[in-house]
């Protein structure tokens, strides 16, 4: 028993992450670790670097010209910026949901099966099963099951966003990154997304950027507060919202700036 090593609690570790847009330093050395099966919320005023940092975690910033990143980000101890890393594989393990629901202009089924087909899965039964499971996990199955072959674009914004969550979950990533996934949604749809995330955290690690502090407080395990490219405070959500260590954190949470 003793020699069987449980996987480390930490899934992502980041150390001294600096990011430059050209010469401008946007992140000033961020060190943060993320535990498996936890929901971490990144909060902070616009331009504080939370989305930029989030996008470092699956190398989305690679696509932006002039960006340089220093420091280390490790997924299960492996440096994700190492030259040998296959970025497509990385993004399969670290999936992302964006602010605006962005389903592909084809059917719900094809949207969710997209990543699986890309990975070479052709077996109809396997696809059917994974599509159904993913849509169920994303809590949108009941609403789309009778219209799986209808275009995903014909559904409401909240449903589209949950279809996008299902699309990410279909490839069974380890980590799901969400960049303000509910800011374009009404409160009911937002609540449904929040419930979805809560329900999937047994299987996934969730990191979410949100402008909505109530959202962070309601369902995240940990909260990180970023300001001007610095990590000001990172702690359990209950601690952050009840007695944060820094005055700046309290001021931001109370809407005194930002």
């Amino acid at each position, binding site marked *: 028993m003793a020699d069987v090593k449980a996987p480390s609690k930490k899934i992502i570790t980041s150390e001294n992450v600096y990011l430059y847009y050209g010469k401008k330093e946007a992140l000033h050395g961020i060190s943060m670790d993320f535990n498996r099966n936890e929901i971490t919320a990144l909060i902070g005023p616009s331009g504080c670097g939370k989305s930029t940092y989030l996008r470092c975690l699956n190398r989305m910033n690679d696509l932006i010209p002039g960006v340089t990143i220093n420091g280390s980000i490790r997924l299960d101890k492996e440096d994700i910026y190492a030259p040998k890393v296959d970025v497509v594989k990385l993004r399969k393990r670290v999936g992302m949901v964006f602010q605006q629901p962005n389903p592909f202009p084809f059917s719900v089924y094809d949207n969710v099966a997209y990543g699986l087909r890309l990975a070479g899965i052709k077996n109809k039964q396997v696809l059917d099963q994974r599509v159904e499971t993913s849509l169920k996990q994303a809590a949108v199955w009941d609403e789309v099951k009778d219209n799986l072959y209808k275009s995903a674009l014909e559904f409401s914004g909240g449903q589209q966003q949950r279809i996008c969550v299902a699309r990410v979950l279909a490839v069974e990533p380890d980590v799901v990154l969400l960049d303000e996934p509910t800011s374009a949604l009404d409160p009911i749809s937002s*609540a449904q997304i*929040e*419930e979805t995330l*809560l329900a999937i955290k047994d299987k996934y690690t969730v990191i979410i950027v949100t402008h909505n502090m*109530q959202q962070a*407080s*309601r*369902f995240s395990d940990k909260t990180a507060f970023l300001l001007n490219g610095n990590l000001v405070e990172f702690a359990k*959500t*209950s601690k952050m*919202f*009840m007695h944060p260590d820094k005055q700046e954190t309290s001021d931001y949470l109370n809407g005194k700036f930002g």
Partner: protein
Amino acid sequence: MRELFVDEMKKLHGRFAEMGINVSEQIYRSTTALTDHDEALAKEVTSGDNGTNSEEMELEKQALKLIALQQPVANDFRDIITILKASSDLERIGDHAVTIARETVRVKNGKQISPIEKKISLMSENIRTMLSSVLDAYSKNDDKAARQVAKKDIEIDRLYVEIRDDITKALAKHPEDAQSGSSYLIIIKMLERIGDHIVNLAEWIVYNVTGKIVELNPGKADPELLNNIFSDNLNVVK
């Protein structure tokens, strides 16, 4: 998210109900210890109060966490404020039961005056009936029932004045019973205070249901009532 809040509130209500039952038992034990001359039982009350205090602290912690993290508004907000305020009243009732138990031990060392203890026992029974009715109203969110319970506090006030006069008279005849007499005075004052806390509980139920902050203490709402009780009894003493 809503479910999470509802679950947490259910847990809080469960804790509160349990705390209510425990506090009611504490009153029973403390006054039974008096009438049965049972010092061991009285001491149990003192140790039992630690349980009530930690229950209240746990409940407060949970409630504060819910307020900070879930930001309840409207009915949910009233629900959680009610439980927070009501638990303080329950906790205080528990403290009074401890004071009664301590005085009971003191009476045990002095001489016991049976007719007075009988009346105290009656007062305690009334109090416990009121407490169980108010807890029942709480669990059913029944503001009408809560108002009914609050009205009964005037009877507790009346008993308080009556027993106090009995004690004064008894002591006038037998000054050597002063030790017991002074303890009885404290005990009935504690019971009377418990009545006030029960009225507070009723007020919080009304707040929870209607959103209105009300004064239900019959003596405070209508001072005339109290004056009548006091003057009646002054006449009796004469």
